[in-house]
Structures are given as C-alpha cells and as structure tokens.
C-alpha cells in the first residue's frame, strides 16, 4: 500500500507543491528531447529514402563535431572550419554511397544494418586516429553561440534557462521547418518522397537512386553536425557521446521510422518522460533509471501502435 502511494500519489504531490521545480524539470526534458529528435531525424531521413537502419548516425554526430573542433585546433578560422566540415560530411555521403550502399543494393535490411556497424567502426577509428581520442571543448564562442542563462521568476520560484538550450530549440525548429519545405516543395524533395515510396517505381520514372542517396546521407550529415555542435556545447566532444545514438532509438520507435514529425514528437515525449521519471520516480528505484526508462515508455506506446505514433500503417499480404 505504501509502495503504491509512493508510485502513484507522492510524485504528483511533489509536483504540485513545487511547481517551479516541475517546470524546470519539464524544460530540461524538453531540451534533451529536442536533441534526441535531431538524432532521430537523421535516422528517419536515411531510413525513408534508402531503407537503411543507419546505426552510424550517433557516430556521425561525434565525427562531425570532432572534425569541426579538430580543424579549428589546427588554426582554421571557425566559420571556414564549419564550411570545411560540411564539405567533409558531403565526401562521407559520397563515399558511403559509392563504397557501401551501391555494392549492397537489394540486400536484406539486416545486412545493410550490419554494414552501418562497419561504418561506425571506421568512423570511430578514423576520428580518433586523426583528431585524437581525448575530450575536446566545443568552439561555441567562436561560432557566436550564446552562453549564460536567464532566470525567469515563475510560479513562486525561479526557472533557469540556458541560452544555448534556447538556441538549440530555435535551430532545431528552423531545421525541421526547412527540411519540411525541402521535402514538400522542391523537385529533389518530391524525388526523395518517390524513392521512399518505391525504389523501383522511382527508378522507372527516371529518378537517379545514387543521387538521392548521396543527398539524404548529406542531409543526415548536416543534421548530425548541427546536433554535434549543440550537444558539444553542453558537454565535451568525445566518443562517449555515441551513447546518445542509443538514446535516440526509443524516440525512433515511438515516432515511427518513417515520420519526420514523429521524430520530433517522439523526442519531446521521451525527453520529458525521462527527466520527469528520473526526478520524481528515480529515488524509488535507486538512481540511473534514465538508462531504460525511455525504452519502457516506447514499449508501452508500441503495444498499442506497433508501427509507432506516426509510422505508416503496416499492411501485410500473403
């Protein structure tokens, strides 16, 4: 009885008695959620267009951030380094298409999934070989990213908001909006959607699969770079960041593998749920429940909607 009280009633009493703390936790969850969404977005872009479950997305985030910081450390001006990093991500997309996707076309999904593991190892080894494995500080000042924080009086207390978090939320929104426009309004966007629907039909109307794949991997690379900058500004840039890829997976199944809005909504649900769970229910189980709480939330959703919240309805024929 006492246990039930602690699980179902006590946390809500706590929320009610300290609303400012609740809002603070909510905000932190929201910010974490935005970053999860960005990673999930990279996954979705690639999965939609090529059916590849790209495990390397998390490492691409680290690799992009590391390239940026590494170039700056070698004396390249900050914005030139940014441009060069975008160039590197383009070369990566080109290389992946030419050396991995093209020879493996028409293979089962699990083989392509496995190939992205190989890519992960290459990026880890390559990144550490070129830029060294020690944690680095993101060049947020040089990129004119804001630092410091606002203290907003609210609900009889204060809510603290880091400026960088607000910037992250803004950049994420801009990115999603521009991706949406890109997908809906441009010629390439329409071609992308055609490929996502059916490879064969797209080929038959003269869409080049190679070009589309390079484009989506490049887009995913840019998303990875943005994520890397945002995440790196909050903590250091190192390969320890690759665990965030695993954090993005529940977001992905929650939102559906093929839905961009799903990635965003899923990210926010997971981020908020995780932080609230850790803060209010965590002490009951001993800390660290963040690690699996997201998966449990996603599992519960999946039991009711097996294709995720926004995924395409699964139709099966014999």
């Amino acid at each position, binding site marked *: 009885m006492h246990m039930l009280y602690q699980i179902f009633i006590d946390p809500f009493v706590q929320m009610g008695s300290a609303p400012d703390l609740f809002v603070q936790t909510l905000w932190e969850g929201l910010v974490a959620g935005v970053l999860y969404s960005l990673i999930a977005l990279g996954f979705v872009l690639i999965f939609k267009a090529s059916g590849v479950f790209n495990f390397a997305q998390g490492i691409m985030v680290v690799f992009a951030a590391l390239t940026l910081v590494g170039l700056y450390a070698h004396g390249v001006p900050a914005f030139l380094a940014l441009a060069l990093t975008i160039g590197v991500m383009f070369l990566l997309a080109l290389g992946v298409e030419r050396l991995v996707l093209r020879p493996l076309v028409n293979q089962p999904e699990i083989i392509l*999934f496995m190939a992205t593991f190989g890519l992960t190892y290459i990026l880890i080894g390559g990144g550490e*070989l070129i830029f060294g494995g020690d944690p680095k500080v993101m060049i947020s000042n040089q990129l004119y990213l804001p630092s410091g924080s606002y203290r907003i009086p609210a609900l009889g207390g204060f809510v603290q908001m880091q400026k960088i978090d607000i910037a992250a939320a803004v950049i994420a929104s801009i990115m999603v909006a521009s991706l949406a426009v890109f997908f809906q309004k441009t010629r390439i966007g329409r071609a992308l959607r055609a490929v996502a629907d059916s490879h064969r039909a797209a080929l038959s109307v003269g869409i080049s699969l190679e070009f589309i794949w390079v484009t989506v991997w490049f887009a995913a690379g840019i998303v990875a770079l943005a994520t890397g900058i945002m995440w790196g500004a909050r903590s250091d840039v190192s390969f320890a960041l690759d665990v965030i890829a695993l954090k993005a997976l529940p977001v992905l199944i929650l939102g559906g593998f093929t839905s961009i809005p799903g990635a965003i909504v899923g990210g926010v649900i997971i981020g908020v749920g995780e932080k609230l769970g850790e803060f209010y229910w965590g002490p009951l189980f001993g800390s660290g429940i963040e690690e699996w709480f997201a998966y449990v939330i996603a599992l519960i959703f999946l039991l009711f909607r097996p294709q995720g919240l926004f995924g395409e309805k699964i139709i099966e024929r014999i």
Partner: protein
Amino acid sequence: MLYREAGQFKTTYEADQALFPILQDRIGIVVILAIAFIAVPLTANTFVIDSILIPVLVFALAAIGLNLLTGYTGLLSLGTGAFMGVGAFGCYKLTTFFPGVNIVVLIVGSGFLAAAAGIIFGLPSLRIKGFYLAVATLAAQFFLSWCFIRVAWLYNYNVSAAIEVPQRTLFRVVVTGPSAAPTTRYLLVLTIVSVMTLLASNLIRGRIGRTWMAVRDMDIAAELIGIKLYQTKLMAFAVSSFYCGVAGAMLVFLWLGNAESESFNINQSFLILFMVIIGGLGSLTGSFFGAAFIWGLPIVLEYAPAYFGIKVASATAEHLSYITLGTLIILFLIVEPNGLARLWQIGKQKLRVWPFPY
C-alpha cells in the same frame, strides 16, 4: 576426388535422414572431435586455450542461441548480452543457494532462468516486428544491465559489485575457481558446447525448427497453415535465451572467473550479432566460424604488425584495428552477404565436382 558421395546408397529412411548422411562428413566430424578432445589438450599452451579456444567456444554457443532466434525464427534481438548476464548472475546465485549441487547442473539450471527472462522480454514480439522489435529488445538489455548494477542481492552485496566464482569440483577434479586448470575448463566447455550443438541441430531438423523457419519466411502464412505464432515465437525466445544463458554462465564460471555488469553490456550483444551475421544467418556451423572470425580478428590484428617487424604505437594500433575491422566487415558483406557458412558450402560443392568446374 576424396569428397564425393557417388555410390553411397541409402536403403532406409533412417539412413537418409541421418545427421551426417555422407560418409566423408562423418569421418570429418570424428576427426575434428578427436582433435578437439584429445590432441588440443595435449599440445596447446595456456595462452591458446585461455584466450582463444575457450572464448571462441563460449561465444559460438551464444551465437548459436542468437542464430536460433534471428537466423531461424527471423526475430532480430539486441538483448543477447543481457540474457547471457541472467545466466551468469543466475548461476552465481544458484551456487550460493545450493553449494553442494554439481556445477554442470547449476550451469544448465541457470539456462532455464535466462529462458524465463527471455519469455518475459519476448512478449512484445507477438505484436512488434522487424527493427521495432530489435529496439524493443534493447529495453531488456538496458533494464537487465541496470539490474546487474543496482540490485545488490544479485552479487551477494559484494562491495566491488562483481561476482567471484567459488571453487567447485566435478568427479573430484577442480573445474571452477582460480585453481582450476585451463585444460580441465576447456574440456568441460567443449563437452557442454558439443552436446548443446547436437541438441540444437536436432531441434532445427524437427517439428519445432520447421515451425520456426515457417514463421521466419512469412509469419502470416505460417499462421494460416496452423502454426501458433504465440507459442512458436515465445519458444524461440526461450530456447535462444537458454543457450545464451548457459553461454553466459560458462563465460564467467569456466573462462573469466569473475565478472561484473560490464561483461554483459550492449557491446556484448552487438558482438554476438556480428558473429551470427558474419558466420551466416541460419547456420550452426556458421556460428562457430563467426565466433572464431570475430574473436580471432582483433588478436591477429594485434600481433600481426609485431610479427612483420612493424612498430606501431599501441593507441594508433587500436585505432587502425578499428578501421580494419570496420572495413573488413563491409568488404565481407559485399563479397558474401550470406556469411562464412555459405563459403564453406561453396567450398564443399567445388570439392564434390572437382576436377570439373560444375
């Protein structure tokens, strides 16, 4: 020339359905077993046994477990490491509760604990498919790893949060604990792995294996011909986790001697998945090849530069071995997506028609 089945006629159904219908295969397996059971313990040194042979056998068993689930039933799982952990921690608790019971019984018993865990975390598979299921099994991975750290009861409130293997004897020979001879442990591992592989191969050839493969090929069609999906999928999860659990228990009790939750984290799951895919989905022989390849490759990469007299800084060597491993995986998938088992088959076919090309 040597490997040719011409003239070997079967006159009974038993002979036709035997495990090794071809005489040369029977001779081959006897030779391999003889080498493994007699020649290796007599000749191999401690390094070879402890860092190559025992781990390869243990991982091969885990790979067989995952192969039963992923290769034969078509359910992708990323929770292998956690199920191995259930076996290891379960076996540790069992030795605490039943100090007098034969250790082999306890290792097999811990497999049943892992099977129970597998059934619980396999429940979502009834509704979720494909990569969605793979991510759902990650829930098992993370939840169980968390338990291995946070639930102190599992490691008997040990300060180091690690499990230490107690000394146990089998027929008055020390088989576990620090004073057990590597050769003894190797022979025990080999025996368990051989028996369980035989069981698995018979399971696959029988009714259960056929229902698994039907579900893999198309689950709706399988349901239409009267296969109960719930039972079949849960059975696959249970048997797979049983194998992984036994492998996990052996990993700690017969190889490492102590372990903590780190040994059963997500990387372990990925490692086993590599072995299954590189070895060949849906092949027991492939599981052994895959385990040997994935376990052996880093060792080769570590010692190869020194052998050729090239000096590399250890950090650089580690990065290079990462790059090489990644490149080899991709290259391998491009050359032969069906894994080492397929290469083995092609080789046998070539031998059979030799000296003609086909």
